[in-house]
């Protein structure tokens, strides 16, 4: 099966090409059918690959030389694919969620004018994401990394005629690009010091004593790279450790952008302007998890630098609590879930930062299940009600029984109530933070968990209990919507059992080549605390929204400034507007002036000269063969003078 890995991303690509070529003439059923089938086969292959890896271990990367520009391996850029247990796991998660979302979209997007275009973009996205996962080197990884960004842009802005959607797409793209620049610089620095992009060789010497695998002050370690040596900045005098930290932090900046961590988290909530299946696929389960995946893939690099790992942990923990507290007050159902995603990604980063590699990946998997579920359920609600405002909903338990049941499962999983999936993974992370001595981060995670349970049950009570406040006749969206919901509901309920303290199946699978990072031991007391905190959050939501009319408003008033802060997302957007966007615009205004009147003037002058020159050339081509002959002879005379001059005769 591992030999067929290339087929996993290629199938959605094939579907993309088919839809690109003839999508406009296809019926909705055909377009959706082709896409779902392609991803379904990818999913089956992924199962086979996971089985293969579990049985025989990872395979050596399969690569083909792509570009040769120097001697040796440093001068060869390869493309190909690689399967390790980490890649195999990601392949499975991505293809599974994609398949369910593809199915869901069949109903959700029904009747859209650009139905096949939507599937076309989705296919391109899935191809890019799967390609990213199997990349054997950083350069190929980066190409796909940018490609998923482009797809995210296309899909967030799918309803480009809505100004908010167009603005959100732009914001998502630009903000993540900031992170990408950091990542790219990191990749280049790594290449300059290591002479390779390959993950395998990059970390080949990672087990060297004290993690000093990078000889920062050494000249280029490979010969024949005359052309690169020109750009090499040797960082003379730098301690190798400082260089490792720098590179790790640069790589992490890329992850911050993609995984919407503080301070680049602002794009994700806005990206909710895209169609809901897009939010479920890209902004919950796959693309935003790519940042965490990047950190996991580059784990040896982070292990080599304590400063960098601490930064990852602190940013993760802070993001978790910040986003959770914002989620408490939002009115838009999708925005609450979006902030929840930001917060949960923070947990994953926290895990990676404290060295709990397996816990982070475990949470990535369970989160993909329950967050995709919550988004799809929200999509089902929006589909039925045509509003996203929580305060226009209510009482939907009666109308949407399947959506209600599955949403509840997702909410319980997110809140960390045993035995639902989220409990096991989140508790794993909290235990890891506590055991590794990060007590402050543990406390932050615990408070964030309390907020999490509170905001998601606030959504639950406002949506499903009470009485319906609108005037429509909500109903379920048919089997294409309910089947994915049920499938994800089951996974959100029992998915945690892949890695319980009694049977760490996932842990064993991921560490088939020996232990990676730090595996927290089971701690029953901490487990009980986590579960109680989750229940406490649910209790808070219940008392505020179910017991007495107006209690929530009074509570909000009493909270005063805190409430306003949370409701306005701590004014981060406004702050950026003030300290970044506004000055940049001001400067841009000055530049625009310079540009328009001075640079543009020069450019236009150059253009005029070029054009006039062109006209001159045109008229020099008079059509008179005599002229041509004359010019040729004249040119000959000049040439002869020049060569004779060189020859030194005159």
């Amino acid at each position, binding site marked *: 099966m591992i030999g067929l890995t290339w087929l996993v991303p290629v199938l959605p690509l094939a579907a993309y090409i088919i839809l690109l070529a003839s999508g406009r003439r296809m019926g909705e059923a055909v377009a959706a059918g082709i896409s779902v089938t392609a991803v379904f086969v990818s999913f089956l292959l992924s199962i086979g690959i996971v089985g293969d890896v579990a049985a025989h271990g990872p395979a050596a990367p399969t690569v083909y030389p792509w570009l040769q520009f120097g001697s040796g391996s440093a001068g060869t850029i390869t493309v190909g694919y690689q399967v390790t247990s980490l890649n195999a796991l990601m392949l499975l998660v991505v293809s599974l969620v994609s398949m369910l979302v593809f199915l869901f979209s069949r109903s959700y997007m029904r009747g859209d004018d650009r139905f096949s275009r939507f599937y076309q973009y989705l296919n391109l996205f899935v191809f890019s994401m799967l390609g990213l996962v199997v990349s054997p080197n950083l350069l190929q990884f980066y190409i796909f990394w940018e490609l998923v960004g482009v797809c995210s842009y296309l899909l967030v802005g799918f309803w480009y005629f809505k100004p908010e959607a167009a603005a959100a797409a732009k914001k998502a793209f630009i903000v993540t690009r900031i992170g990408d620049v950091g990542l790219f610089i990191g990749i280049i620095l790594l290449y300059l010091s290591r002479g390779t992009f390959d993950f395998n060789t990059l970390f080949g010497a990672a087990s060297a004593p004290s993690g000093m695998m990078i000889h920062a002050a050494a000249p280029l370690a490979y010969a024949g790279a005359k052309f690169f040596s020109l750009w090499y900045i040797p960082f003379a005098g730098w301690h190798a450790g400082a260089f490792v930290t720098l590179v790790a932090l640069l790589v992490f900046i890329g992850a911050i952008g993609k995984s919407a961590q503080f301070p680049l988290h602002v794009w994700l909530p806005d990206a909710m302007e895209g169609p809901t299946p897009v939010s479920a696929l890209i902004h919950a389960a796959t693309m935003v998890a790519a940042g965490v995946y990047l950190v996991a893939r580059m784990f040896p690099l982070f292990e080599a630098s304590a400063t960098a790992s601490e930064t990852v942990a602190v940013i993760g923990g802070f993001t978790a609590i910040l986003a959770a507290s914002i989620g408490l007050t939002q009115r838009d159902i999708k925005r609450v879930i979006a902030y929840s995603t930001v917060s949960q990604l923070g947990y994953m980063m926290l895990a990676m930062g404290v060295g709990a590699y397996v816990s982070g990946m475990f949470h990535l998997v369970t989160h993909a299940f329950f967050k995709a579920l919550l988004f799809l359920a929200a999509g089902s609600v929006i589909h039925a009600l045509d509003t996203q405002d929580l305060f226009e909903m209510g009482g939907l338990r009666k109308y949407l029984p399947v959506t209600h049941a599955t949403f509840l499962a997702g909410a319980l999983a997110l809140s960390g109530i045993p035995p639902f999936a989220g409990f096991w993974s989140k508790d794993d992370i909290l235990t890891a933070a506590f055991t590794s001595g990060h007590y402050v981060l543990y406390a932050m995670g615990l408070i964030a968990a309390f907020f999490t349970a509170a905001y998601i049950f606030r959504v639950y009570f406002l949506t499903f209990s009470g009485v319906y406040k609108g005037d429509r006749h909500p109903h379920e969206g048919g089997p294409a919507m309910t089947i994915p919901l049920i499938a994800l509901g089951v996974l959100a309920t029992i998915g945690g059992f892949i890695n319980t303290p009694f049977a760490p199946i996932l842990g064993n699978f991921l560490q088939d080549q020996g232990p990676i990072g730090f595996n927290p031991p089971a701690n029953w007391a901490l487990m009980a605390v986590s579960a109680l905190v989750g229940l406490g959050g649910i209790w808070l939501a219940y008392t505020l929204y179910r017991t007495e009319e107006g209690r929530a408003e009074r509570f909000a008033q009493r909270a005063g400034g805190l409430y306003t802060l949370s409701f306005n997302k701590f004014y981060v957007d406004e702050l950026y507007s003030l300290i970044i966007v506004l000055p940049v615009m001001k400067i841009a205004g000055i530049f625009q002036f310079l540009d328009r009147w001075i640079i543009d003037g020069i450019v236009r002058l150059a253009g005029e000269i070029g*054009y006039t020159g062109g006209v001159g*050339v045109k008229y020099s*081509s008079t059509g008179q063969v005599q002229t*041509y*002959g004359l010019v040729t002879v004249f040119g*000959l005379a000049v040439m002869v003078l020049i060569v004779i001059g060189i*020859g030194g005769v005159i």
Partner: protein
Amino acid sequence: MANALQFLTFSDVWRSMGPEIIVIGGAFLIMLVELFLPASLKRVSPWLAVLALVASATVLVIRLGAAVTTYSTPAYIVDDFGSIFKLIILIATLLVILLAIADRSAESLPYEYSYLVLFATGGAMVISSGVDLVTLYVGLELLSIASYILVALYRKSARSAEGGLKYLIIGSIASACILYGLSFLYGVGGSTNLGQIGVNLQSGWTNYSGILYLSLGFVLVGIGVKVSVVPFHLWTPDVYEGAPTPVTAYLAVVSKAAVLAFFLRVFVWIYGQKFGQWGDIIAWLSVITMIVGNIGALPQRNVKRILAYSSVGQVGYLLLPFAAVGSSTLLNDMWQALSSIAFYLFAYMFMTIGAFAVLAKVAEARASEDIDAFAGLYRRSPFLAGMMALFLLSLAGLPLTAGFFGKFMIFLVAFNAGQYWLGVILFATSAIAFYYYFGILRAMFTREPAGDQERVRSSPTLVVVVALCALGTLALGIAPSPLMDVLNGLHWFG
């Protein structure tokens, strides 16, 4: 000489000139057959030419990489340098003939073109392998004279006749210059054999440097005219415009490749030892050719003239690697330069013939070569519009196309040689080029078609030509390594 000939058997000749024999023999055969064919069957003659080319290319490919073959006082050599140029020439000729078959407007083209093209190609192949001044010159004239006739092949078109005449006059000036220059070389070197001259000059250079430089100047000007190096390019737009489109494609690709082979062979073998002193001339010629060629295309509205000017600019790119390795004493640098030239020629061949093929079809549908004929092509034929976009983007050097890697290789050569300014000009002129290519793209995709909205129907042969060119353009753009590996592994001059 007579002594040497006595020992030559046919199998010796076949071993060294097999592909040429097939092409020239094929040409004679078609010439004869064509006389006796009834008018209704005359259209098989281009297919016979296709057959001859395929056979010749097969023989050539089988030989590729075999040991160098010469015969006694060598006038002819089978080395990788010659073989790779011959391969380019054969593939390009094949594509051009297919294009001529597909081009309906070329129906008025007399079928004589099928053997004329073969004669010209035979000449081009002789140039690639000749190592004797006389052999080289005979090859050059064979190519040139056949080309003059080809340009004027539209007997009823005044523009075609005019183009033919101009090409003849200017081409004769060029031939005269080359011949005159070569005569000095013979006088000083005491031989017509390149290798022998090279050996003799090692000691004679200092005594005769004035005359040698004079010969260099004359040969360079003659070659400059033939490959349209600025300022000897003035005939190019007129002749390209007047010639039937397939012939234009032939001139732009095969003619240039062959004369470039002449240039590289003579200049590396004979003048190479004093490269450091005259190399800058090539650099400057390359620079003004890139600049003037690309700027000249800006105000043009006739797409054929745009492509003509663009092909002038492309010659600048092709000269650049040779100019850049200049002062290098490393043989490897020279090989790298030759690989990059050969790579660019492959890329140039696919994208140029492809662009001319689309142009031929569009011009036929609208009876105009003006840029307006391309308006709304995307509606009228998405296939042709998409392919044209690919060829233009490749000519402009966008990534994932052959043109990008071609330019990238050239850039690397310039960079390695430390001639950064040449690289900078390469990029700057490519940026200018983007402007006029973009004009065509904009016409195809954003403007409404003027006049009738009827779809442009492409014949299967045209689709094949365009698809082959597109395949080549994309394949070299996405996976340049296989070709690069072959080129890097060549033993150029044995």
